């Protein structure tokens, strides 16, 4: 993981168009339309290399649908997902890259560390599956990844014996070890208690900007979005309502605890990830 990428220097939120311009090359460029019953997700997301973007919205806004579509767990109904110049999903061209073949790393909300595997083997799992490494090599690499995130001494523990903050680090190591071209974080802080939250938020704040891959954070907490991301997309009922560069920048991003209190309490069943 090198910090050297030119775009790794945090771009100020005001110049979000810079990210848009470069996204076609290395980053993520996605126009996603997913229909699930009455709910429609219709959103455009661009994340440049080295950029951290947050998708902010209440539960039911379509965050999880968006995340699943990007990860390849849910096919698009229309639109197109391009990552690092490669088309991952385009229903019109009948192109769909399966989840296991996408260079996309996911840190799930409650981490989903495999309970029957030690921390080391959780990380090694991806190294074997995606990079085709052998047993010994993958374990050694896994340990160095754990060490990099400060949990090297916990390699022998099973997920049940890890605290929330530790599990978060292991999950991040597991996702990044597969060398993804896009990192997705699903509610990275919601499973933590208040004190750990601050600590993990600070940890992510230092780690995320150093990644060369684009990072997309899905969250319901405006503070997390504000602290962790360069830019925020506010999602309401499957649609983006404002962006910081757009004209009416105010309410969606105001970091008061009540997130996006705009319209339409339409029932949106799609959020159970």
């Amino acid at each position, binding site marked *: 993981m090198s910090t050297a990428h030119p775009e790794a220097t945090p771009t100020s939120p005001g110049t979000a168009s810079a990210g848009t311009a470069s996204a076609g090359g290395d980053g993520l460029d996605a126009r996603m339309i997913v229909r699930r019953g009455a709910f429609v997700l219709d959103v455009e997301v661009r994340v440049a290399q080295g950029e951290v973007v947050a998708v902010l919205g209440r539960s039911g806004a379509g965050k999880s649908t968006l995340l699943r579509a990007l990860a390849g*767990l849910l096919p698009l109904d229309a639109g197109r997902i391009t990552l690092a110049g490669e088309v991952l999903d385009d229903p019109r061209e009948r192109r769909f890259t399966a989840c*296991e073949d996408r260079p996309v790393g996911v840190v799930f909300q409650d981490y989903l560390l495999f309970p029957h595997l030690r921390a080391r083997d959780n990380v090694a799992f991806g190294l074997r*599956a995606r990079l085709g490494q052998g047993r010994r090599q993958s374990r050694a690499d896994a340990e160095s990844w754990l060490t990099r995130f400060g949990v090297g001494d916990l390699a022998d523990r099973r997920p049940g014996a890890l605290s929330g903050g530790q599990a978060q680090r292991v999950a991040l190591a597991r996702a990044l070890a597969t060398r993804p071209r896009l990192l997705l974080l699903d509610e990275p802080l919601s499973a933590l208690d208040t004190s750990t939250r601050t600590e993990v938020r600070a940890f992510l704040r230092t780690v995320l900007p150093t990644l060369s891959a684009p990072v997309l954070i899905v969250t319901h907490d405006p503070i997390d979005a504000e602290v962790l991301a360069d830019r925020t997309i506010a999602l309401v009922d499957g649609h983006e309502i404002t962006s910081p560069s757009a004209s009416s920048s105010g309410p969606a991003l105001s970091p008061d605890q009540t997130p996006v209190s705009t319209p339409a309490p339409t029932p949106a069943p799609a959020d159970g990830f």
Partner: protein
Amino acid sequence: MTTDASLSWSGTSTQAGESARPGGPGPARRRGQRRETRRRVPWALWLPGSIAVLFLLLPLVGLLIRAPWTGLAHLLSQTSVRQALLLSLRTSSEATVLSLVFGVPLAWLLARTRFPGRTLLRALVTLPLVLPPVVGGVSLLLALGRRGLIGESLSDWFGFTLPFTTNGVVVAQTFVAMPFLVVSVEGALNSADRRFEDAAATLGADPWMTFRRVTVPLVAPAVAAGTALCWARALGEFGATITFAGNFPGTTQTMPLAVYLALETDPDAAIALSLVLLAVCVTVLVALRARWLPGTRWIARRRAGRGALATTTADGSGGPR
């Protein structure tokens, strides 16, 4: 998660299972639960419950009391007994392996895929759970017998016959026992958290690797429980075996058949053989303590019912063979 849920489930069901089972869980667990159930128990419940306990335990007590303990060693050292025991252990183990190889994938298909007629298929493949084993044996004869549906071709083309051979015993036992494994594993797969499989996919694991390294380990307790039930069922299989494979000492005479036959000629030997089967089953039950058998209680109970039915129907069918 899944394990927690099933643990607590089996925890609460222990009281019910305990009474029906000889050599049930230890006194520590019992004491812990008595504290909760100290409320007054209506006599309309405890009276029939106690009668049920007596009814279930009395035959076992009778077996233990009437057992020819002094001559036991001599009876069990007979060649025929050893033959039957070894044959039983061998065939039921083979049937269990077959059930694992074919039953676990079947359980996965039933739990994880959607296709038209899936519900009906599930009902059909679990039919042997409730089907009288003798009927199973007759059906097997009609399908795989020398003049059966595909048995004829097997015999003509490959010179391969199943009925009245040791392989036939294995087939009959698999037919009857595999559904226990399928039901047990499918239940666990249905209640397992499928998001772990999503996580595996995002890490680059294809469906086969996900199945081997994530899905199966997560339902391992249920696979173990199902395997034990399946093996025990195969070991006790009588009706389908005697109908489809016959009763030839050394090749198809398993322990239950030997017990039944010995009862007419040498009752003491029958008792001795029954004791051996009882010992084997108790050993398995103790080895798999209650927490190893989550979600399989109802099967165990049904199995007890089925066993009784099997022997009664077998009484009528011993002759016509």
